[in-house]
């Protein structure tokens, strides 16, 4: 049994997103976080202080742990964004504005 089988899901054709340049398939309607979980990925950020990996924690947009850079924009909550074809998700390091470091 898997979740799709449990609810008798018949999704439309999958979309392809890029995670750190690697193609990952996303079902229509899934969030970016869900697509990454389905691919076995649970971390897509490193923290500002300790450089530790993080991913989705609360899953509903409250905890802000699932931040990553999406199509060049840092600090996006992947648990809220629906995956669109061609979305490029990159692992975010720290605050995500590395280009501003002096």
């Amino acid at each position: 049994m898997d979740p799709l089988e449990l609810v008798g899901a018949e999704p439309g054709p999958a979309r392809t997103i890029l995670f750190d340049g690697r193609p990952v398939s996303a079902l229509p309607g899934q969030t970016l976080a869900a697509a990454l979980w389905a691919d076995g990925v649970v971390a897509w950020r490193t923290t500002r202080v300790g450089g530790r990996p993080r991913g989705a924690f609360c899953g509903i947009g409250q905890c802000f742990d699932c931040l990553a850079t999406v199509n060049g924009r840092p600090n996006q909550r992947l648990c809220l964004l629906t995956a669109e074809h061609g979305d490029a998700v990159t692992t975010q390091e720290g605050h995500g504005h590395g280009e501003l470091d002096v």
Partner: protein
Amino acid sequence: MVNSTSEQVRYDLAVIGAGPAGLAAADAAAGLGLRVALVDAGAGLGGQYYRHPAPELGAARPDKLHHGWRTFAELRERLAAAPLVDHLAGHHVWAAERGEDWILHATRGPEAADRATVTARCLLLATGAYERQLPFPGWTLPGVVTAGGAQAMLKSGLVLPGRRIVVAGSGPLLLAAASSLAAAGARIPAIVEATAYLGYARGLPVLAGNPAKLAEGAEHAARLLRHGVRLRRRSAVVEAHGTDRITGVTVARLDARWKPVPGTERRIDCDALAVGHGLVPQIDLAVELGADTVTTADGTAALRVDAQQRTSVPGLWAAGETCGVGGADLALAEGVLAAHSVAGKPAPARELTVRRRRRAFAALMAAAHAPGPDWTGWVTDDTDVCRCEEVPARAVREAVTELGAADARTVKLLTRAGMGWCQGRMCGPAVACLSGGPVGRPDSRPLSCPVPLAQLAQRDGTTELSE
């Protein structure tokens, strides 16, 4: 029902939150002839409880992941046909302003790129709850997720955080989460519940008055039995192991005060952990308006309401989890009761009965699952308490013992615990406990969600700023 907003409309009632309480209130209010704005941050109706797969996923049997799906389906159908209700989806209200009318300020869309205001004569807060987290060593590892989060990701995205998932913490949500995760194909090596579940035995008359709650519990229990899932009571996950991802947990027995009993540790392998310690009413908007609160038996702050669901703020009603966590049936009943009060109509007898019984059950549940005072015994000094600002327990303890902090607010000012993105929603209850100060005080969040500065700068809603 119209899925759009008109800033020119003056609504009779604005309902914030489209979960059980908000849906029932909007439906009842429209039935009583009120013009209603149903405002919700999410894209669809249902809130967290009735969260369901996006239509594009083509789920033929969404009810498989739900208790009471039919109630939701009927409400959704009725609301879709209700000309008096506007569903303002993707609207995250960050402040409510009281004037002659209520003016709600909201961001729009998942990236808060746009804004909106909603004007209404009366306001109902049906914003539900979020999960309470108690930290333990390793709780920031990837693969450790909240029990509600695992539920939410499964219900909406049809995905699991791993294949072998330990479910831990306290409260009935653990049984519901484990039951759906198991049904969706996950192995559940154990449900680890901190209480003995004996607290319910003290309320046998209350249980007898709530046969539906007993049936719901029995349904979960039967499903868990079928999947061979073991409930380990009076135990807690005291450490999660792994470097870049969780690989296992250590579980220990707890005494009655939730202190881990030395020598009882046992390791369980897993690739995910779903954890939570009950729910916290989400009442930021009302707290900023000065609404009175009460402290529930499990130490959370809830809104104080009268028999008509009115808060202490004129024109502000509340229903469901905002008045104390009690589940969907209670929320549905209170939504209906609030709508009748707003419309100036007598309360329907059926909902009054449901509310009386379910509120008694809610009080029993809160007392049964209240965290014991010694849970902090498993928090090692190097455990990050605040996930956002990466503040270890050591810093919090030093703020108390060496710098004289005696409440959560002082600890926050000294350590930054609670100052990060989530504004203390994840660490707040834990910091309050570790500080030794009062628990169950409402948090103050003048803006209930992140708002772009440009939107704050145009609060009157008349001038448009160019990007």
